[in-house]
């Protein structure tokens, strides 16, 4: 579903070039949930923005959802959903209206869009909230609404940028359940960045740990822990690979 080779992004700044992402290789198979972890400034969001066509890579090649990232960005966009870290709606926007607009932008007619919105709202337990402005939704409801936005066109691949940041433990667990159910029901592939190691451990089939724009480690949570020692936790893995505990990063 994602095949990237040598994916790089260098930003030009006043103080000279900054390599945010350095020759990253990424492979994600259909139906996988892959966690993308790294300290602040590791290049996670830059990588996600490149893979979702928002930022042009300065090096390397990538195929996303069966299409070349730089040669066919419009085709990539049709097959992916993206839930950015900062949300998807302004505070005064009405949930149902925003979702209908989103569906129309994927080419659905007015009736089809309304039906699809109702279906997605129902599946994410948001059916009663269509007429509500985003500002009146709880953090968990708003995040589920963001995910609804990314799922309207039934994408093959969903990118989630720190989907549970700021949510209480109950809302986080509910969101994990939604992601697992979507994978089980629709075979959805999920590529998510997270600051939470418990989330990565509970939700992800495989992890990709980046540091300084490079891959520092990759594998299943169990395999990564086994490499460190029999009683190792993902905290230990992260510390060993990056030299820093992720908890400190998450708190920063």
């Amino acid at each position, binding site marked *: 579903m994602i095949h990237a080779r040598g994916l790089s992004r260098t930003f030009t700044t006043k103080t000279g070039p900054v390599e945010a992402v350095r020759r990253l290789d990424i492979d994600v198979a259909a139906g996988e949930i892959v966690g993308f972890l790294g300290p602040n400034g590791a290049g996670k969001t830059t990588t996600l923005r*490149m893979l*979702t*066509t*928002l*930022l*042009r*890579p300065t090096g390397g090649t990538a195929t996303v959802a069966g299409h070349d*990232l*730089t040669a066919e*960005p*419009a085709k*990539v*966009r*049709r097959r*992916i*959903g*993206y839930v*950015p*870290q*900062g*949300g*998807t*709606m*302004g*505070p*005064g*926007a009405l949930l149902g*209206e925003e979702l209908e*607009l*989103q569906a*129309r*932008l*994927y*080419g659905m007619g007015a009736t089809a869009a309304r039906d699809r919105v109702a279906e997605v709202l129902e599946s994410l337990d948001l059916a009663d909230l269509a007429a509500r402005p985003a500002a009146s939704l709880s953090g968990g409801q708003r995040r589920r609404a*963001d995910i609804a*936005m990314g799922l309207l066109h039934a994408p093959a691949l969903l990118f989630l940028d720190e989907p549970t940041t700021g949510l209480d433990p109950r809302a986080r667990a509910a969101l994990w359940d939604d992601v697992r159910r979507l994978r089980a029901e629709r075979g959805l592939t999920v590529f998510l960045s997270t600051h939470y190691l418990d989330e990565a451990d509970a939700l992800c089939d495989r992890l990709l740990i980046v540091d300084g724009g490079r891959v520092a480690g990759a594998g299943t949570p169990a395999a990564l822990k086994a490499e460190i020692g029999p009683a190792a936790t993902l905290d230990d893995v992260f510390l060993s690979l990056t030299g820093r505990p992720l908890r400190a990063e998450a708190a920063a």
Partner: protein
Amino acid sequence: MTTLVLARHYVRQTFRVKAALVFGALQPVLFLVLFGPLFARSGVGSWEVLVPGLLVQLGLLSAGMSGFGIVFDQKFGVLERLRVTPASRMSLLLGRVAKDVLVLLVQAVALVGLGYAFGLRAPLPGVLLGLALLLLLAAALAALSYAVALSLNQEMFAPLMSTVLVPLILLSGALLPMSLAPGWLDVLSRLTPFRYVVDGLRALFAGHYTAPDALLGAGVAALFAVAGIAAATRRFHHENA
């Protein structure tokens, strides 16, 4: 089609907050009510001179500040969400611009109506042609406003635009005809497109449809619209994969 879908969505959003529409047009309306009678009695010009100027002032203040909306959309992730859909960058821009043009049309019609109540006696064809010219100007201004908003630090947009727009209004001759200006100010005024649009509107409101000022104003407004939309589309495309 996508442009229409977006425009309808933005129009629905905008007209939901009717107070914003009123406040957007408040400054030119206040000029009409509180400055217009003085202007008309002073011998400097008539209502047919003032109202076209106030329409351009309205265009600069209303469409010129349109970019403020996209600052919020950037902040709340709306723009990012829309940019990952298959909608073309041009339609993402034009949907917004179409909304801004419609909003300005509603405000401009209200301003002209109020002008008639105070003593404006412009011929209807002239008013309609003048509004068409104003809408071209609004399209250019709104597009450029979005381009500026996307190019700047979010906090910079409002102070920068409000600082830039006031001298542009004064230089356009919207409030007082530039024929009264000293030579250097007249030259400076001719370096902005707004001067030609104000003169064009005044010619049209006077019923001089084929006067050089009317034709030049129409030409400048059309060129400005094409250039503004082209520049803004380029900005919307910037950084895409």
